[in-house]
């Protein structure tokens, strides 16, 4: 048991068919992030763009498409680089828990807890 594709079936078999996969990224509305939509098989960029338009932009569901040759995508998923084995909580807002310390400071200064303000400096960026 090898758990790899059978010998007569290879992925991205560009040489045999002259086709290769192109990744399609979609922007739904102006200002939105480009998100991966899927991929198309094409022999060149011109046809890849046509196929992408037919499959991902036919219903006016895309504001913009990026079509990128799969071979040109550099994949980085090394956990040693992306999730190093160290506590990185000091880089995140959630890494600073000071409720008890604030309470202690208030008690020391004799000040009351201020009313909750509608203004906040918290951003909406993901905190993970």
């Amino acid at each position, binding site marked *: 048991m*090898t758990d790899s*594709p059978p010998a007569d*079936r290879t992925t991205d078999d560009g040489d*045999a068919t002259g086709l290769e996969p192109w990744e399609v990224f979609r922007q739904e509305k102006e200002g939105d992030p480009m998100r991966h939509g899927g991929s198309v098989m094409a022999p*060149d960029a011109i046809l890849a763009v046509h196929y992408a338009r037919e*499959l991902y932009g036919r219903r006016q569901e895309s504001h913009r498409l990026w079509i990128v040759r799969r071979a040109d995508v550099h994949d980085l998923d090394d956990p040693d680089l992306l999730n190093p*084995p*160290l506590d990185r909580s000091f880089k995140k807002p959630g890494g600073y828990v000071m409720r008890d310390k604030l309470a202690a400071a208030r008690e020391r200064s004799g000040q009351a807890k201020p009313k909750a303000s509608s203004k906040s400096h918290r951003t909406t960026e993901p905190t993970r």
Partner: protein
Amino acid sequence: MTDPLALDPVLPASERSRLPFNEDLPHDERYELFEQHVTGGGKVEASDWMPDEYRTQVLRFVEMHANSELMGVLPERDWIMRAPTLRRKLALTAKVQDEVGHAQLLYRVAEDLGKPRTAMVQDLLDGKTKFHNVFHYPTRTWADIGVIAWLVDAAAIVAQQALRDSSYAPYARTMRKICWEESVHIMHGRDVVVTMVNGTQQQRDMIQEALDRWWGPLMQMHGPRSDRAKDRDIHWKIKAKTSEELRQEFLSIYVPRIWELGLTLPDPDLRHDEAEGVWKYTEPDWNELRAVVTNHGPASEARLGFRRVAWADTQWVRDAILGRTAAAELRLPA
């Protein structure tokens, strides 16, 4: 500089690398980690390691789905030139284009699992792989187009919605896009049916006659009841629901909507059992289903024959596309 890896790990390994089966481990250990990941709700990408059994199972499932989208346009294609109004013609043309588009998306998903598209087309044309039972029947009147777009697509979408959370992530993502497009088809089909029900007696009769003919295949479409514990597609979380769960869901949503129009269904035993909370029905003809999906249906040969002719007729397009790249390469000195 201190080697960060030499420090005591603070985060557990499971949080750092979520896919331990991608590591170079002995096969059985990998298999076990993969199984834990998938049965625990984890997702698999095309570039991840996967056991043969999983790859084959997903491939077979997606390939059959792709074949069905491709063959499923033929009954509807027949009616583009006979659509009663321009708006209906545009809608039907768009639906046919959508379904072929779904086939393209699904063949892409299958290709990345290791089977080239030409091999999938050839296996379909040679009768080695299957497509859904409902596409082996002829369409006799315009009413068939309404019933197919409403109820065949509805039965399909019930199954497809349950696939949006498939463990094979590229398939799940594709299903989210497909379900969004299918919802338009159901509205188009229901609109055709409701319009005809409000029309002349002859139009009402046409809808009723089409519904009577399609009900058997519709009840067979999700397949015979199966044992959840023995279903490998469910074990690997490729799909989430059994045939009977899908059929019950289809009946609960659509039987009331059919009855609401004053239409009847050709099954005297069909009723909702309040006590048990399930739909009761006459056992579908599973022999018919088996015969039909092995290409012994009333229109199987005609549909495959049409595809064979179309495949041969369009060979020049594929040749031209590949020839064009060859020519372009010739012009560019290496």
